[in-house]
């Protein structure tokens, strides 16, 4: 049967394929045989179909993250850079503090209790407030402190020292 008959719509329907595509491909093949050089015996592929869905990754950063999700190429060993080893530095720092606290534990708990009492309810019947009434705190938090004033902020276990601080209480108002 001639190719023209085969390209007719009712013939395509009988064969079970779409009429327009095969008609176009037939006409395209016609043109190709006349004007274009083709290899005999090789099927002309008009459309390359990619059956797989492929994603390409150009680098290794995503694969490194599989092994270590929050990896960082920056590291410190032996506490050389404490900023990079915060967990270990904090743990060691707290151990040091615990060692020094053991000796003066009883005194500090009483001092802590006194500060708690003062903090909650304010001044009580002329009780000393060695920390809060220091000149440094009365001036306000924005200004720099002198080195001599810093000693007053240290928890004072000596009652005479706390009385000295108390002298300035009436001169400057607390902000």
């Amino acid at each position: 049967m001639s190719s023209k008959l085969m390209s007719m719509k009712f013939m395509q329907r009988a064969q079970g394929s779409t009429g327009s595509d095969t008609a176009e491909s037939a006409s395209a093949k016609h043109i190709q045989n006349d004007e274009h050089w083709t290899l005999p015996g090789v099927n002309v592929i008009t459309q390359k179909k990619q059956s797989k869905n492929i994603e390409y990754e150009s680098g290794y950063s995503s694969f490194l993250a599989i092994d270590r999700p929050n990896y960082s190429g920056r590291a410190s060993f032996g506490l050389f850079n404490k900023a990079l080893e915060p967990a270990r530095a904090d743990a060691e720092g707290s151990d040091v503090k615990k060692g020094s606290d053991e000796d003066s534990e009883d005194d500090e708990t009483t001092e802590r209790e006194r500060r708690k009492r003062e903090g909650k309810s304010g001044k009580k019947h002329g009780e000393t407030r060695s920390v809060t009434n220091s000149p440094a705190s009365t001036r306000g938090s924005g200004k720099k402190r002198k080195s001599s004033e810093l000693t007053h902020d240290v928890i004072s276990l000596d009652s005479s020292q706390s009385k000295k601080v108390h002298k300035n209480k009436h001169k400057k108002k607390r902000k």
Partner: protein
Amino acid sequence: MAQVKEGNFVFPGDVVEGADTLNSLRLGPGLVYRNNGTEERICATRAGVLCTAPKHTFYQDFRQKRYIPSLNDHVVGQIVSRNADGYRVDIGSAHSAQLNGLAFENVTRKSKPNLAVGSLVYARVSLADKDMEPELECVDATSGKAAGFGELKGGYLIQNISLSHVRSLLQSSNVLLSSIGTHIPFEIALGLNGRIWVNSGSIQTTVAIANAIKQSEYKSPEECTELIHAILKTL
């Protein structure tokens, strides 16, 4: 936990088996999908170890010293020059990278960091394209914090390390750096561009650490331990 599995050593042209039946794949460096109409296959293009990862991911780990910038790589760069926007940084790639002066943590237009030419920075590649010059940032992508990025002061820069060796040092299973750390306190910045920055207490210890890193590329964990002991004896 998801793990990367190392498989066989493959040569260029070898077909990756086990990937033919899958419809959706992720291919990493070294692998290409070839379809010539009649046959589909996934071929290796480099000589290296074939690795598999979760979610149908395949890639090759091969020895290469030439760095090609890739997105989200952590690199060690050296500032080459300054311009109005920021800095030009040499990261070992074909083109210099651009580091914006505001791409740091807690920075405003008035309080920008002032980095000198020749200083080293640890940064993340924020833009990597074959048609554009790469761009760097000294902040973490998700948190916006420094997270170890920024200027690297002092120390010593080891250059010309193969990229695969640096990646092996980054793995959690590698014990070389932690073993050295038990004897010598030091800090390190591993750049995926084949550069490693090391800083420690003295020049002798820094040189010892650099030698240990360079010589440990083809050594097994036991040989690495022996290497560390041999180097420590020289100190």
